[in-house]
Each structure stands twice: as C-alpha cells, then as structure tokens.
C-alpha cells in the first residue's frame, strides 16, 4: 500500500529528519513507529499525507506517486486517510461534535450519515457526554480522543496515529488500542507512532524503529527494544 524509496527529508535549516528511508507497508498491516524524541516519526507521517514533500526519493500510495499527485487531488487522497495529529489540530471554534462531523461534511457525506456516525464514534472514545464542549474546555486526554474520533469517523483505509495515547492514562489507552485493533481487523492499515513501551510489547505487531532519521530495526511481531523482543507477553 505504501512504499518509501530512498526517501530523504531535509528541513529548511539543514535539519535532516529522515535519511534514505526504504520501506514497504502492506494493506491491512499494523505498524508501530518507535524511536527517541526527534527521530523523524512525525516527519515520516507528514510525508505520507503530503503535509511535507521529501527532499529526495520516491513515495508511493497504492501504486501511485504521492509526489506527482496534482494539487487538487490532495484533498480526495487525504479523505482516504484518517490522521491523529500529535498536536491534535482540533478546530478551536467548533464543538466536539462539529469537529468530528467536519471530517464527514468535508467529503460531502449526507446529513443522515453525519447524524448517525458522529455520536457513534464519540461513544467509542468515551466522549458522548462532551459533544457540545469546545476543545479549550476539554482535558488533554479528552482532546486527544476527539482527534482519534475525527480520524476514524469516515472509515479510512489508512489510519495514521501520531502518539495517540500520549495524554491518556493506561486504562483509557488500552481501550483506545482495542478500538484501533478492531478497526485494523476490519481491514484498515494502521501506522502508529508511539513511545508507549507497554502497548508495543503487548500488541506484538510490526515495529519499525527510527533513530536520527534512519531505520535501525524493522521486525514483525516485535517489541519496543531488542530485549523486549525475547520475552513474550510480559503482562
């Protein structure tokens, strides 16, 4: 589904965030992206959704080049992808309900679908009682869950989640991981950047480890570190 060919991303001030990345992600996979702070995880995600363009290399989505995509095709492309941004990016002048509904409205979904689906996903993330609140009136974890709800509401074929449990307590994190796992089972490809050792070790999915912009490890059913690799299901 996604292929990176010798992708390098250098930001303005000569910061090399990703260097010569080669990687292929298949349809239906669940990939954990881990690595220290500043390793390039978010940059990796940004390249896929065309928030940034790579300095070098080629990037394919379902066999088509993301780089050579026409500008007016980008929105339609992004609609197939659900994105949980590390900094949430909620619309501050809209309520929780409106934020989630927006993802559907933007793709011209009929009103009936909006009315049916939005409360449903809000319940999934445990926020049905907050639908009239504005983002500034939510706790950090609540905002994060709104971002998750918005990303999954339109049944994307790819879900990119950048640190989606960073502001959640372990129990809620577990709920969210169950949710993502279900979505994955229904066929959605998931790329999740995370620092949560427990989650990675518990889920036993493909783990891609980035460090200073390079892939230093890429294992199926992996753990957060090499040692975690050995024990199976500590918990």
């Amino acid at each position, binding site marked *: 589904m996604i292929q990176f060919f010798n992708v390098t991303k250098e930001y303005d001030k000569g910061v090399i965030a990703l260097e010569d990345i080669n990687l292929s992600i298949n349809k239906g996979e669940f990939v954990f992206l881990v690595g220290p702070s500043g390793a390039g995880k978010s940059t990796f995600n940004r390249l896929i*959704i065309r928030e940034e363009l790579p300095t070098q290399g080629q990037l394919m989505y379902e066999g088509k080049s993301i780089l050579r995509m026409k500008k007016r095709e980008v929105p339609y492309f992004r609609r197939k992808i659900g994105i949980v941004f590390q900094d949430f990016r*909620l619309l*501050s*002048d809209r309520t929780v309900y409106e934020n989630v509904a927006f993802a559907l409205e*933007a793709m011209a979904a009929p009103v009936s679908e909006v009315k049916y689906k939005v409360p449903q996903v809000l319940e999934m993330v445990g926020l049905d009682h907050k639908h009239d609140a504005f983002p500034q009136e939510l706790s950090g974890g609540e905002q994060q869950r709104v971002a998750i709800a918005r990303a999954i509401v339109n049944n994307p074929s790819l879900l990119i989640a950048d640190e989606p449990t960073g502001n959640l307590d372990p129990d809620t994190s577990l709920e969210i991981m169950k949710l993502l796992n279900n979505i994955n089972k229904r066929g959605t490809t998931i790329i999740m950047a995370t620092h949560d050792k427990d989650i990675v070790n518990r889920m036993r999915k493909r783990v891609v480890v980035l460090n200073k912009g390079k892939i230093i490890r890429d294992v199926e059913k992996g753990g957060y570190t090499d040692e975690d690799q050995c024990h199976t299901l500590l918990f």
Partner: protein
Amino acid sequence: MKISAIRYSFRDAFRSFWRHFGITVASITTVAISLLILGFTLLLVLNSQYIAGFMESQVEINLFLREDISRQDARAFENKLTRIEGVELVEFIPKEDALKLMEDSYGKDVDITKALGGNNPLPDTYRVKVVDVELVPQVAATIEKYDEVESLRYGQDFVNRLINFTNWLRNAGLVVIVGILFASLFLITTTIRLTVFARKKEISIMKYVGATNLFIRAPFFLEGMMIGLIGALISVVILYLAYGTVVNYALSSVPFMPLITDKTLLYQIFGYLLLGGTFLGAMGSMIAVRKYLNV
C-alpha cells in the same frame, strides 16, 4: 458542489459570523466607514461639479445693438441669433429697461433719468446664453460679425477663469475619487485579511482533514459577502439620512445653492456601494483564504 456541501457552507458561514462576533462587528464597521467615506466623497465631488456646471450655465454674452437699428429690426435679429450653433437662450432688453436696471444699481435716490433730461445713451441689448461655456468665445466671435452689433461683452477674463477652474475641479475630483476608491478598497480587504489571518490555523487543519479548497472557501465567501453587504447597507442608510439632512439644511439656509437632489443618481450611487461592498467582502475573504490553503 453537492447540496449537502452548499447547506454546510451556509450553516458554517452563519456559525462563524456569530461565533467570532467581535471580529464580525469590527469588519462590518470598517466596511461601513470605508464606503461611507467613499460615498461621501462621491457626493461631494459630484455636487461640486454640479455647482461648477451651474456656474458655467450662468455665463451670458451681453450684446449691444447699433443705435440706428429700429426696434423692429432689433426684434427680428433674435431669429438670427437663435440659429447660431451653440446658442441656447436669447433675451431682449430694450434700452429703457437697460437704463432702469442701471439706475436701480445706484440706489433709488440717484435719479439718472432726470439728470439725462429724457435722453437715454444706452443701447438695446441682447443677453445670449450658450449651451457650453467653452463655446462662448466662438459664439461671441460669430455674433460680432453681424452688422447689427455695435459691441459685445461677456467678461472674457471671467469666462477663462471659470473654464480653468471648472476643468481643474473636474480633474481634482477624479483624482480624489480614484484615490479614495483605492483607499477604501485597501482598508476593506486589509481588515478582512486580518480577520482571516486570525483563523489561518483553522484553515490549514481543514485542508489536512481532506476538505477541498472550494469547500473551505465557500463559507468564507458567504461570510465575507454578508459582512460586505451589511457594512454597505449601514453606509448607504447613513449616507441617505445624512445627505437628506445636508440638502435640506442647505436648501433652507442657502437656497440659491445648486445641489443634486436627483433621486435616480443617488440610488445609482447607493446601488454601486452595495454591490461594491458585497463584492469586496466576498472577494477579500476568498483571496485572503487562498494564502493559507496551500498545505
């Protein structure tokens, strides 16, 4: 665009209109003030040119007939005069009336008629009005060639001055209007740009979530239109009331002052202001949004 998207656009335009109410009020007021200044300048310039035109229309050629022309011939001469190209109106003043007029100008106590002992040294006179003040010298030259004419006078100096002045006024008026037009254009679009600027993060988020440019811009377009229209409406209402007051006051205290009271022209100006305000509001916010769409 699908029906649902159009419905969304309207809903969203209204929502944002009310949710950013402080900003909405600020931009509406800016639009109103800018258009008020523009409309006011327009009316000022148009009126001053109307007055200039009026002053020009007051210019007349005083034409003195030879003394030996009989009263009948004198009256017949009127036909010749009216046939000259550019002549608009001709008025005959017999020498008796001319003397009377002169005497009046010295006050009732100076009895020139008596001093003259029944003699009247003044000639029969024609007052000739010309359609366009610029034609006066030319018409005067034509008239002077007639045998019946002893001499004529039209205040060459004054006419030249007047032409200079009114031409100057027209040019200055044009420059002023163009200047104010651009100024109000800038003020309106800048304010709208600044209000959009405050929402630039929101715009980029929408784009990341998969909204098309059209979908993002449509509500801004509608909201800009509403702001422009309401601002323009306010300016038109104020202008209408203010102009009415000014004209009434002017006509009562300076009744001789020629002012435009032609409603059609006023309504035309108001129409342009409404159209311009709406257009600028809509376009201004559309263009401002574009800057933040490129993500």
